[in-house]
């Protein structure tokens, strides 16, 4: 059996195991466990797509929260029933035709992704005129603009009141399906000639240009693909928590994503997946340290915020001991795994 057949078989096996695990949780898991798993998948989607721009292209882009917001609002406004919209928009009615439209969830997710991509396209022209810190500031500004617009455009977003009563469409199948799809697409892209060009731009833009790589074209591609998946993930997030408001997608969300991809390893998809999963699960698991503890001889009262302290310590430990994040720039792959196994048996 040649290695490519072996790898394909292994991948199928892994997906089957994932599907089996999800099935078990869907059937027997508590609502709480399912929620954490959903969060995990959404954060994986967000981190992997964000990593495409920040990790593979080496661009410090600080506006994914804007695309997540656009995706979330688009998809929410498309799935809400006209009756629910009428109930929610109490200060100013929703503008026509959004007030009467209702589409299936899948369509709304794609629409969310497309809307995010469209806005990404619009801002890409000013954004890619600058580089480095300046680019970071431009994208950061865009994130804030979107938040303020969501607050101000009462007849479109319901302003600070937010939207509520979304149907909880986001199931494990949806969230993990999208996560797996995102990982597959991004991996394919990164391993293609486009991906190599992106990495070349990351290493040295001038040298890449000299070799005939068009930086704008490749950065735009990464930016748009990243925005699309962020938008879709935004739609999933909206239908998971069933309510959205402008304060849901602040800079803190971007900040969390940035931590995830740095800890996972900038420029490693598997690192982003691992770190996102740890982040979503760890945030809940660490709640233990905030509840009162009875150590037998002494009772420690719960201190809210201890999670954050511990989280920061873990972050520092990771950065101290693995300076390039958990995975660095390497990927988990079947080839590596089997090579490692072979070395182990030989030894």
């Amino acid at each position, binding site marked *: 059996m040649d290695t490519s057949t072996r790898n394909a078989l292994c991948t199928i096996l892994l997906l089957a195991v994932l599907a089996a695990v999800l099935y078990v949780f869907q059937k027997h898991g508590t609502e*709480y466990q399912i929620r954490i798993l959903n969060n995990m998948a959404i954060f994986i989607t967000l981190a992997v797509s964000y990593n495409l721009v920040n990790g593979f292209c080496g661009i410090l882009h600080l506006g994914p929260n804007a695309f997540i917001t656009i995706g979330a609002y688009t998809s929410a406004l498309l799935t809400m029933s006209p009756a629910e919209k009428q109930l929610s928009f109490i200060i100013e009615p929703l503008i026509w035709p959004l007030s009467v439209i209702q589409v299936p969830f899948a369509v709304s997710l794609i629409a969310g992704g497309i809307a995010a991509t469209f806005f990404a396209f619009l801002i890409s022209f000013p954004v890619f005129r600058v580089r480095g810190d300046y680019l970071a500031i431009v994208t950061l500004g865009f994130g804030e603009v979107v938040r303020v617009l969501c607050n101000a455009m009462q007849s479109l977003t319901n302003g600070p009141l*937010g939207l509520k009563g979304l149907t909880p469409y986001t199931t494990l199948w949806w969230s993990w399906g999208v996560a797996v799809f995102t990982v597959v697409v991004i991996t394919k892209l990164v391993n293609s000639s486009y991906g190599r060009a992106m990495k070349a731009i990351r290493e040295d833009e001038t040298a890449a240009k000299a070799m005939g790589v068009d930086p704008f074209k490749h950065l735009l591609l990464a930016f748009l693909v990243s925005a699309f998946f962020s938008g879709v993930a935004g739609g999933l997030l909206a239908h998971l928590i069933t309510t959205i408001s402008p304060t849901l997608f602040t800079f803190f969300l971007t900040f969390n994503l940035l931590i995830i991809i740095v800890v996972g390893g900038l420029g490693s998809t598997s690192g982003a997946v691992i770190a996102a999963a740890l982040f979503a699960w760890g945030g809940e698991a660490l709640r233990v340290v905030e*509840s009162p503890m009875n150590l037998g001889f002494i009772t420690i009262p719960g201190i809210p915020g201890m999670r954050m302290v511990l989280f920061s310590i873990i972050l520092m430990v990771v950065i101290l001991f693995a300076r390039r994040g958990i995975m660095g720039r390497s990927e988990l792959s079947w080839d590596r795994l089997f090579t490692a196994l072979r070395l182990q048996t030989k030894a």
Partner: protein
Amino acid sequence: MGRRKGSVLLAGLCCVAFALAGPAAAEDTIKIGAYLPMTGAVAAYGQMEWDGIQIANEIKPTVLGKKIELVLVDTKSDKIEAANAVSRLVEKEKVVGILGEAISGNSMAGNPISEAAKIVSVSPTATNPLVTQGKQYAFRACFIDPFQGEVAARFAVNELKAKTAAVIIDIAQDYCVGLANFFVKEFVKLGGKVVSTTYIQTGDQDFSAQLSSVQAAKPDIIYAPNYYTEDALMAKQARDLGINVPILTGDGAQADELIKIGGKAVEGMYFTGHFHKEAASTDLAKKYIELFEKKKNKEADAFGALAADAYFLLIEAIEKAGSTEGPKVRDAMVAIKNFAGVSGLITMQESGNPVKSMVINKVKDGKFVYVTTVNP
């Protein structure tokens, strides 16, 4: 010892600490969950409310003959975390009632989960009308924003004897727009006339255009339900122009900054609000304020008082229901009438919103003083 060994040891110690840290749950307790923003952007609200809940718990530590165990989970002022938190309270902690969240957006993320689990949840301070809309198990201890506008209109007509009013609205804030709409409705219903309506936006510095239109209309009062910065600046410019009619506003303006910015110009400004410690009329309120100030060494505030009321309402409902089953507690909650809480008499409505008395405060000698209570 190598670095690696050191970190392994550290990790091991952490594991041991987790293993030992089992929850100290006794059998004869009733668990009440609280999900509050203890950290993050609005941590101040969460902390004030948790203080209030703790004091309320000391006053009433038992229900149905069992001890109440409070379980606090932090939401980091974040919606995703708020949804996780409620899910955790419901599934893992198996609470029978939930208190929180402090802000509307987060309550809207938490409520669908408690609703699905048929567990009553009471928010102390979520004022957005959408929070309880269409929900069976979602309640709040505060009144919703529109109600403040109505009460302000009644106060203007009955106490200030106003026949005409000028309304100045900050259109960038739904809170302000909501208050103003309901004020106008009620004011007109009571026979008043709105002679001037002008708009400002958060961040505006110059209000001369709006104020000259107000001056031309010669109203008996100005209703400006905006936040403190705009209200302070507006009051200053109004007094400079020689407009000396009383200014009435909502609780968003009642902050120390108002007096700092406005100085003499805001003297005599009236506010509608949730709570003032001098307005405390019920026994529970007196007990609460005394214990609060003794234990926490600070003045009792509105957030703490409303959180305590959320707690007392929930306990009262469980007591009346004689059970901790969600549907029964819910029915008992809806049936609560004239409950003497910390912030006054509270009657719960089917909608999940309470009808309750409101206090009117005023600036006098650079301080917020209590004027009167308007009953519903």
